[in-house]
């Protein structure tokens, strides 16, 4: 009974699945069926996580933003307002799905559905535990980038199909912004990939395990660039110019109502979790936490890390005003891109030194960490100086005048 042998080892949900596959093999099933079944199990696991996360995140986000904004947030439906997302969903579902007269019907309906595909696919390559990964692609990082680039088209589909001027403005902004931000994000990840020497996310996590250090200690600059770049790619404040509530109302999804709007809302949260998960596995060791995963299941640690990073995104949203479109582009091209290039070159140099002179990792890695942190600090401060040269750092406060200095008009009597 190998099925029962180790099935309770939940430290890695790959274990019970492996037991199950063994049992199926014993039962004489062909490889294809087993492949299909294990894939289905993984898909169910991921979909249930995504579904629960999308619902819970609505609550988390609204509560936290509420805390930041000195109010309580939803607290009426269910304990602590936990059922608020359910109430929201019920409300959205029973609303009429309006469609503008001259909208492009098929594209209009398809866009909110299709936009979920890249969001969910992104979870398939993430390692949740040592054996707990649905598809261990050896081009995992590139796969994630490819997925994020397709989102652009779908958002444009939604904006174009709505036949609304605000929507067109929003979707043109999305395209311009995502194209600009793809470059620094790719280059930042290039640093990580070069350092770890692999594009597979499992490989990157096991690299961090092998050298007993999270990659953020070697790649602080890449982390910052990726964090800021992905804020823009996610359309979240301070880079939410595509939705820009106060300018173009809701941008590309202005015409969407009911559950179609709900899908856009949910996919934003799912994407945020996906990006948090990517950051967690690339820079914070994924499921590996300095041996702590022996006591607490790695996937729970991973989820903990995801939500810690998600909190940063919520924090951004609660505190920062929005960039203007051109300022956001300038930030990508003039700051993030050069920094990412310098970072990638630095990593290439370090890897060259490491492999060429065959220095042991114990000596060379701490030096790299120190050098990279120093470089990040110098570059950020230096770029800050250069960029703000045109602008006084501290604004002139209004001068206080004791008396009026314009000629007094005629006394206002009848």
């Amino acid at each position: 009974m190998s099925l029962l042998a180790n099935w309770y080892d939940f430290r890695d949900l790959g274990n019970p699945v492996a037991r199950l596959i063994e049992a199926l093999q014993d039962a004489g099933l062909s490889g294809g069926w087993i492949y299909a079944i294990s894939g289905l199990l993984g898909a169910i696991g991921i979909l249930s996580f995504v579904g629960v996360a999308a619902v819970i995140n609505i609550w988390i986000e609204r509560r936290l933003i509420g805390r930041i904004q000195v109010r309580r947030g939803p607290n009426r439906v269910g304990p602590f307002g936990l059922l608020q997302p359910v109430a929201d969903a019920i409300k959205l579902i029973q609303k009429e799905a309006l469609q503008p007269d001259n909208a492009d019907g098929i594209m209009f309906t398809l866009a909110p559905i299709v936009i979920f595909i890249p969001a969910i696919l992104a979870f398939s390559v993430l390692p949740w535990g040592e054996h707990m990964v649905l598809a261990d692609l050896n081009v995992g990082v590139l796969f994630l980038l490819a997925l994020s680039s397709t989102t652009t088209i779908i958002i444009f589909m939604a904006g174009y199909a709505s036949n609304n001027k605000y929507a067109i403005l929003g979707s043109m902004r999305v395209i311009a912004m995502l194209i600009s931000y793809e470059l620094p994000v790719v280059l930042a990840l290039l640093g990580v990939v070069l350092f770890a020497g692999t594009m597979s996310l499992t490989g990157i996590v096991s690299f961090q395990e092998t050298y007993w250090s999270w990659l953020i200690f070697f790649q602080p600059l890449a982390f910052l660039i990726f964090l800021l770049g992905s804020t823009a790619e996610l359309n979240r404040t301070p880079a939410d110019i595509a939705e820009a509530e106060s300018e173009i109302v809701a941008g590309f999804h202005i015409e969407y109502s009911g559950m179609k709007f709900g899908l856009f809302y949910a996919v934003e949260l799912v994407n945020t979790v996906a990006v948090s998960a990517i950051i967690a596995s690339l820079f914070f060791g994924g499921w590996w936490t300095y041996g702590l995963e022996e006591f607490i299941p790695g996937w729970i640690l991973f989820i903990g890390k995801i939500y810690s990073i998600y909190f940063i995104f919520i924090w951004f949203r609660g505190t920062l005003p929005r960039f203007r479109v051109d300022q956001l582009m300038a930030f990508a091209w003039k700051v993030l891109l050069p920094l990412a290039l310098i970072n990638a070159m630095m990593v290439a140099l370090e890897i060259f030194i490491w492999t060429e002179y065959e220095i042991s990792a114990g000596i060379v890695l701490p030096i790299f960490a120190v050098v990279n942190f120093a470089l990040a600090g110098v570059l950020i401060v230096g770029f800050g100086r250069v960029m703000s040269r045109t602008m006084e750092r501290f604004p002139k406060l209004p001068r206080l005048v004791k008396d009026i200095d314009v000629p007094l008009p005629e006394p206002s009597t009848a």
Partner: protein
Amino acid sequence: MAIKTEPLVVNIGPQHPSTHGVFRMRVTLDGELITDAEMVIGYLHRSMEKLAEERTWTQNIPFTDRMDYLAAMTGNFAYCITVEKLAGIEVPERAEYLRVIFAELQRIASHAMANGTFVNDCGAWQTPLFYMFREREKILDLFEMTCGARLTLNYMRIGGVAFDIPDEFLPQLQLLVDELPDRFDEYDQLLVDNEILLMRSRDIGIISAEDAMNASLSGPMLRGSGVAWDVRKGDPYGVYDRFDFEIPVGHTGDCFDRFMVRMAEVRQSLSIIKQAMEQLPPGNHCAEVPLNFRPPEGEIYCRIESPKGELGYYLISDGSPFPFRFHVRSPSLINLSALKEMVVGQTVADAIVTLGSIDINVGEVDR
């Protein structure tokens, strides 16, 4: 080789989250650049000036609440002071001081609202707005304590104020006056040092001092452009000549200057309130004025410094219990008239920020 593009005509408003009511701006866009803008007002027109001719002088006070509903107290103040001047009514000392206290509280509330929505227009996800609401709420509590209403107060009367302040009012006010400077220091740290806010609001929507004077702008719009003009100093009404305060004046006349002028004015208002609390005399809170009183025939224009600017009332009396003519010089409308010059050549995002920095109130624009 030029690429052929079409201008895009976009209606910003009348239903838009950042038009502060039902104001409509019809802009022609080249890409995101505004090449032409047309202001369309009148969606909230309630014909108050005409309606007022059918009501007695006292009955008209609630109308003034509903013009600038975010600064009802100064609306009351301006109207009452005009009628008193027309009829030559002496206002008791205590009422004058109470009026100053409430008008300045209202100014703080209105400026808090204006700055909160301004930062909201810059794209901050409503956080500053809620912080400002917190302070405004305390002021509205004080209003409620005194006159039972929070928004449309109808507190001032011809010849004084409707009610004297309750006993617990002054201690509460003292608490507020002690607390608010700290709070606004905090907002200074949060907002004024915020790089993104600076990027969004500096050198945006500039109006020069000359243009501002020629366009007859007033209030923080005028002072932001560097003109030190304040009706409280230049043409003192009530007991304002007894207080010691300063006029904050901006440098370039951009959105950031207007924002900062409002921030600084809050502190000046607090200092006026403090002085008024110290000097508050005992006595009657309202002069005896008959309910259907008839001012003598004549016409008058009288103005005060409302949070939005110079709020003036032009009244003609024919000796009847009703005004013959009731005209309002509303600062929102006149400040708004400069918007086109400020937004053409900017992007949509800047236009929204500029509109937010003018601090209009559509109730007062359309009346």
